[in-house]
């Protein structure tokens, strides 16, 4: 027995040591002119219940003109696994995340936007859940923050701490499901998803990049779970946040849904899942084109024109059926904005054309 142990040690020790060199979690933090908030974001990473030497934090300074880089550097003593990647010119959120992912060495990957923060222990709890259930990724809850007001936004899947099929969490069509909770920052993924290309973002998308990302994750990953602990603090009142931009970057939502449709085209269950994507697209369009939406003037027209083009490439029956279930008020918003009836069955709904 002792002889066996003695013989095995030289083989086992280097392997064990090799495992311990990989960080437990790599956190990707893209930051552009984030000086007012980055300190809180990085401070929250010092309280995640993961040994600091096993936490890799990759801040991507995406061409900041403020003190973002200096603030990040100031955290080096508290975050020994801190790495800072710099872009002389901004490349955008998606490309910045991809850059960090390409550098990440962690066993798990997580995302934190520079203006948000994680509740204490969130990453440790998500990691523990992932390891216990050996799932591909774990989702946790979010709190939306506007000043002192906070609104909890729980992951739509209500079953907690059990392994689930990500594909089964896409439907039903008419309800809020996991693809309607697309924020990459509320997910912790095992490295195997990175190695199989499921964590990269489409760098062409300047907004809505999380939507096709979440769809792909739920289509192609094999398992996930929702953690019962942990929260992501999501600031909603940050000036200049991509969530609030009202310029042409918002039009990228069409490219995002075109990407989702293309994924479904190649998917054996695409026909069953397409109604969900179409309905969600309509809901997004109603938001953008409605009276309180962020777009005005030419951008509204361009979004409507682009939407007409995208819808004309989709199964007309599915489009018509989803339009019919939207309700009169929402349909009126779309009609007023100039969505055509091309290819749609619901001639009555759209025969009047754009309202004056």
């Amino acid at each position, binding site marked *: 027995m002792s002889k066996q142990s003695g013989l095995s040690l030289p083989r086992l020790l280097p392997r064990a040591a090799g495992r311990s060199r990989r960080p437990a979690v790599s956190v990707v933090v893209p930051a552009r002119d984030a000086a007012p908030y980055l300190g*809180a974001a990085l401070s*929250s990473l010092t*309280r995640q219940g993961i040994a600091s030497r096993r936490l890799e934090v990759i801040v991507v300074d995406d061409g900041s003109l403020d003190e973002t880089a200096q603030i990040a550097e100031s955290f080096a003593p508290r975050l020994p696994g801190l790495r800072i990647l710099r872009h002389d010119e901004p490349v955008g959120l998606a490309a910045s995340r991809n850059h960090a992912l390409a550098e990440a060495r962690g066993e798990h990957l997580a995302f934190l936007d520079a203006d948000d923060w994680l509740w204490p222990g969130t990453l440790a709890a998500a990691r523990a859940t992932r390891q216990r259930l050996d799932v591909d990724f774990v989702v946790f809850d979010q709190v939306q923050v506007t*000043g002192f007001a906070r609104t909890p936004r729980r992951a739509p899947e209500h079953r907690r701490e059990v392994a689930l099929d990500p594909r089964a969490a896409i439907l039903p069509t008419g309800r809020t499901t996991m693809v309607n909770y697309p924020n990459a920052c509320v997910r912790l993924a095992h490295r195997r998803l990175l190695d199989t290309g499921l964590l990269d973002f489409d760098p062409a998308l300047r907004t809505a990049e999380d939507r096709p990302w979440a769809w792909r994750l739920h289509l192609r990953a094999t398992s996930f779970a929702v953690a019962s602990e942990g929260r992501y603090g999501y600031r909603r009142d940050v000036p200049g946040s991509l969530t609030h931009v009202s310029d042409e970057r918002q039009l990228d939502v069409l490219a995002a849904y075109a990407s989702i449709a293309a994924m479904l085209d190649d998917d054996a269950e695409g026909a069953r899942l397409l109604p969900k994507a179409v309905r969600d697209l309509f809901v997004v369009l109603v938001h953008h084109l409605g009276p309180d939406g962020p777009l005005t003037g030419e951008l509204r027209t361009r979004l409507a024109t682009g939407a007409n083009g995208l819808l004309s490439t989709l199964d007309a029956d599915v489009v018509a059926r989803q339009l019919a279930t939207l309700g009169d008020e929402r349909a009126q918003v779309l009609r007023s904005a100039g969505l055509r009836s091309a290819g749609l069955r619901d001639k009555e709904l759209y025969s009047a054309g754009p309202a004056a």
Partner: protein
Amino acid sequence: MTLLVLAAGADGASVAGAALAAGLAALDADGEKLLVLRDDRIDAEAFAPLDQEPAVVRAAKTFDRVVSLNAALGWVHPRAFRPRGDSVAVLEETLRREWRLAGSLTVAMDAHDADAERLLWRVFPDAILAVYIAPDGEREGWDAGLAPALVNRVTAVVAVPEVAA
């Protein structure tokens, strides 16, 4: 009897400690004295808890225990919390359990903080109330804007002469 002294931030904790010495302690000489800390930062959870700050550590020595209002309220920010109706009774029960409070209470708060702290006055409807006034505070007018029903419950107003650095 238990004395709860409410304070916001590290500076507030220093003032609360001085208020204890300035007269609050005499309100409940033999009872347990708790410092109830509130962190007003919007992103309070991102930072180390207040009770790790040196000023709070110093102030805490004058109290039997320190508890966190933020921690007790979970995801709700204390500055946004306005208990109403049935939630008041539920919250009283929750806080009594969480903070291990038994029997009658005296709740003291910084006069500057009157509006923000009303929630605890409401949560403990049978508590005796007290107010402490920081050295730079006005003794008059602390009750402006407060409902008379609350003001009438205040049995002591303690002026803090100075706060040790």
